[in-house]
């Protein structure tokens, strides 16, 4: 795949690394000069994806969350978050707004709904027992259009 820049990293599935993932994304986006709204949206989606990997993927085991950020042509940002955790048995059900497998932990079941709302595309690949990979894309507005 043709890309203009790329950043890859992996970190252990611990909740304090959610902030680290958001910070990495912010730093990666700075040269593209996103609007405050674009930055807020993308920080939210990466937080949802990484939190899901930590909370659900590695619920019963430990492991790494892998992150790959790419700047594609035409100001399109590509975000890939993957885990080698338990996987999602029924992706369609999991993506239904308000569905959560962990209501006792005060989860709202809105992570996927937010990721869909704040990106242009979201692809989920998951196999039970092998893990989950999310790929999201969002095209940034042209810089001179920004306020």
């Amino acid at each position: 795949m043709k890309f203009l820049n790329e950043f890859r990293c992996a970190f252990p599935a611990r909740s304090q690394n959610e902030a680290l993932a958001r910070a990495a994304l912010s730093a990666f986006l700075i040269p593209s000069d996103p609007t405050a709204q674009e930055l807020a949206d993308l920080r939210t989606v990466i937080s949802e994806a990484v939190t899901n990997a930590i909370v659900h993927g590695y619920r019963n085991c430990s492991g790494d969350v892998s992150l790959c950020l790419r700047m594609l042509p035409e100001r399109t940002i590509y975000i890939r978050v993957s885990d080698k955790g338990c996987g999602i048995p029924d992706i369609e059900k999991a993506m239904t707004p308000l569905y959560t497998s962990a209501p006792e932990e005060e989860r709202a079941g809105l992570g996927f709904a937010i990721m869909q709302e704040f990106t242009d595309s979201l692809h989920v690949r998951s196999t039970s027992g092998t893990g989950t990979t999310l790929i999201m894309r969002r095209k940034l507005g042209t810089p001179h259009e920004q306020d």
Partner: protein
Amino acid sequence: MKIHYNTDNAQLLVFLDGELDHHRSALLRNEIDSAVYAHMPEKLILDFQNVSFMDSSGIGLIMGRYKLIQPMGAEMFIQNVSPYISRVLRLAGMERLAKISEGVNA
């Protein structure tokens, strides 16, 4: 996070701060609940002035506090929300649980 209880009007004011993600929400939950049990307020006001980020875990935190105070007959208010926070709150339908304002609640 600062918590202030006003005995005159039975309002519990919770000044949330920082980034309300999964990591932080888990830490704040018990602190807020202890104050709720200690004062049994009529109004729970969540102030977002100093909140710089919130995702669905923050929504879970709000929903959980709503479920706690609703049976006590108390009401929830959310104030001083930035447009970015407001977007997530509305996507989650939080206006059905609380009165949301961009300034301070009357």
